[in-house]
């Protein structure tokens, strides 16, 4: 047994896009234990419910995260709508679905790029971002925002998109699908990529479920659980099945996310073809009283927005459990026994979003 060394990893680390801090206990090159420390970017924004009324809080919910912004605001709005028994017009539900899927595309492409960066494939990173840029442009055309869309509100959405513009978006997303196939080929077939991913950080099915994993982490280990199957927004009206891989290693996680890219393209097309006409928002009056756990599937997994109102303008409690929060225990397990050089890759495979985890 070699001597043990503890090295601090993060919060600022060249390979990590996110400020997670881990104390790694090493024995030679092997990690024996990892102790996380979050709280580096804790913003205490759940405390902000005391200062902002429930309508204004949407703008805050939109800014919890810089990647899955839209789905946060949507989950929040769904929570308040459930508490207040507001029925959202169907057109708004479909628009929300379309925007969530485009947000998922942009997030997964970002993740693929960062992953390529983590194993040192710089030009693949550039390729991912080149495609992502076009998705972000589409979001800007439809909503006015590139990442933080700012279009959700309690009771619907704030902007409508004409049907012909939607058809144009669908056509362009499908065109991008061709480029994504080329990108996917590199990720899934290239030997140098496989070398870094196959067999790294294996989580078997039972472990993944036991550790409370969510999202692509869980599905890569063979558990078919996807919050979208609950049918929130318009997911009940489109046809899809959760994407599952068996192996539970980093390569499988990569494969799940890549296959979800194509799934999202398909969902955007389906939703755009079925979108009904009509209003995109209803007027909401009164104050929320009651509580609800709103769940949505983010690119990183299931997110919980707990909303509790006591009949005043200000919510009593707003709590966000982000998917990364649920995936951290699994990360700690995966890190035990891995090589030091694999740590960045493993941290990235959970698709960490630390800033929203610490809120």
């Amino acid at each position, binding site marked *: 047994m070699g001597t043990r060394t503890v090295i601090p990893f993060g919060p600022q680390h060249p390979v990590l896009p996110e400020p997670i801090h881990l104390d790694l206990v090493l024995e030679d090159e092997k990690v024996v234990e990892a102790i996380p420390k979050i709280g580096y970017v804790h913003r205490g924004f759940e405390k902000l419910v005391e200062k902002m009324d429930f309508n204004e809080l949407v*703008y805050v919910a939109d800014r919890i995260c810089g990647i899955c912004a839209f789905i946060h605001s949507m989950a929040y709005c769904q929570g308040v709508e459930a508490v207040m028994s507001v029925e959202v017009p169907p057109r708004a539900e479909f628009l929300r679905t379309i925007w969530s899927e485009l947000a998922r595309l942009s997030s997964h492409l970002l993740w693929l790029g960062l992953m390529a960066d983590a194993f040192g494939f710089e030009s693949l990173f550039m390729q991912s971002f080149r495609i992502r840029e076009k998705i972000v*442009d589409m979001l800007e*055309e*439809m909503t*006015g925002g590139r990442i933080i869309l*700012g279009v959700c509100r309690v009771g619907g959405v704030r902007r409508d998109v004409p049907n012909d513009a939607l058809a144009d978006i669908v056509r362009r997303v499908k065109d991008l699908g061709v480029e994504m196939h*080329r990108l996917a*080929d590199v990720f899934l*077939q*290239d030997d140098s990529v496989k070398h870094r991913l196959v067999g790294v950080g294996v989580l078997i099915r039972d472990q993944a479920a036991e550790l409370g994993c969510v999202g692509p982490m869980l599905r890569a280990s063979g558990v078919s659980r996807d919050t979208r199957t609950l049918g929130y927004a318009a997911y009940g009206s489109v046809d899809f099945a959760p994407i599952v891989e068996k192996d539970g290693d980093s390569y499988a996680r990569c494969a799940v996310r890549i296959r979800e890219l194509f799934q999202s393209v398909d969902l955007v097309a389906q939703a755009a073809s079925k979108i009904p006409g009509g209003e995109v928002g209803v007027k909401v009056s009164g104050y929320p009283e009651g509580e609800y756990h709103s769940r949505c599937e983010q690119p990183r997994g299931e997110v919980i927005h707990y909303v509790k109102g006591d009949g005043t303008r200000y919510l009593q409690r707003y709590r966000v459990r982000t998917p990364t929060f649920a995936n951290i225990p699994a990360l700690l397990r995966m890190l035990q026994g891995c090589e030091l050089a694999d740590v960045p890759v493993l941290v990235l495979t959970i698709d960490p979003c630390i800033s929203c985890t610490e809120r």
Partner: protein
Amino acid sequence: MSVFGMSRTIMRNLFSGPATRLYPTREKEPHRAARSRGRIEIDIEACIFCSACAKRCPTDAIIVSKTDKEWNIDRLRCCTCNACVEVCPKKCLAMGNRYTPPTVTKDKDIFRQPPRPPKEPETIPGA
């Protein structure tokens, strides 16, 4: 086996132009995103200084002074949420699709309504 997938992409990239623009020499064509939330523009002539926008603003970026006939905005606070535009009763606010240029100081943009000729209610100054 497959290291050529990437080489094909690289070859294609070699012969197609760059995917990026040489900002700030070349800006993005604004017509691509007419809806972009760039920055708040005000038609100060039409403003009645009712403070509705300032009250509604979630970031308190707007300060309105009725006595000085002054409307100012802290561009760095503004999160371009569009709430003020929606609430303005005179429709004198608009969301422009150009971003605020980068800045090194935290100045406020101050708009003052030129004083109108007093005691002559008939002469309405042209917008």
